[in-house]
């Protein structure tokens, strides 16, 4: 259960970015999370409410986009999606695959904010 430390890093990172938008309110924080990132969305959501309390992110929504595992298959010469985490084999030719191309991402893609309009 390291989701709380992950969410705390998100709060720090977003707060830092908000310095460029004084007075803005955060509506949404969007993440890209690979299936192999060892992070559970439910735990992230649970911790998000706690960790954002009293910060500029309080009341915002956390949107998590899960990314499937993609490996490169040497035999087929192409990137293939792995549907089961219990077997790292090419779904087309059954070759074992170890060249990871996607699946460990753990990043903030974007934030949606409401900006205060400057007076003319």
């Amino acid at each position, binding site marked *: 259960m*390291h989701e709380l430390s992950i969410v705390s890093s998100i709060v720090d990172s977003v707060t830092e970015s908000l310095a460029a938008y004084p007075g*803005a309110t955060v509506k949404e924080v969007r993440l890209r999370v690979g299936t*192999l990132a060892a992070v559970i969305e439910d735990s992230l959501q649970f911790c998000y409410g706690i960790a954002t309390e009293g910060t500029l992110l309080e009341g915002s929504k956390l949107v998590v986009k899960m990314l499937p595992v993609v490996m490169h298959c040497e035999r087929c010469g192409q990137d293939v999606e792995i549907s089961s985490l219990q077997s790292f084999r090419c779904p087309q030719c059954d070759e074992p695959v170890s060249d990871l191309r996607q699946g*460990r991402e753990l990043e*903030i893609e974007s934030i*949606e904010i409401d900006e205060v309009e400057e007076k003319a």
Partner: protein
Amino acid sequence: MTTRIVELRRGILKKNDELAAGLRERYTKAGVLVLNLVSSPGTGKTAFLERTLRELRARGARAAALVGDLETDNDAKRLAASGAPVRQINTHGICHLEAGMVGKHLEGWDLGALDYLFIENVGNLVCPSSYDLGEKIRVALLSVTEGEDKPLKYPTLFNSADAAVITKMDIAEPCDFDRVEALKNIREIRPRIRIFETSAKTGSGMEEWLGYLAEERG
């Protein structure tokens, strides 16, 4: 009020990744081979490491260890009996080691005077997989008492490992340990990984493991 979407595209663990990259550079410059040992609590990481340190020192290699636990310095005391320099990292509740903790505990150590540095992570098969410690080799350990399907249950960790060690092979038989099944499961998650079948008690499999260490150090 205007709504705006700000693209960030920023790694959540960027700070850890940057610190880990800095450590990796230091290790490479110093010529020390660094390994990160990860397993469940009770797999026998400490016993395996005790034996490894002892055998390496007997061969004249210079090895040291950092050991992570939530509380107590019991493991550091056990490992220090080998004569190797050892430091304990207490995470006080945090379930994994982070690059920053490693960097802090390396202060004052001359890495150039070491051939090997072992980092024994907190016993946990989930969280340590997300945190790079700058190691060259991540070792996943599994004991014969844990069940042959453990790699299938914890694929995120086993898939990120560079080598796998099976421990407590001396009690494999009374545990009805199916070694063929265990090897198959590890390779199903991490094809072509090097696997060492060891016993810290009898020393079986240690020769091959030490050979691998020497090979990787180059």
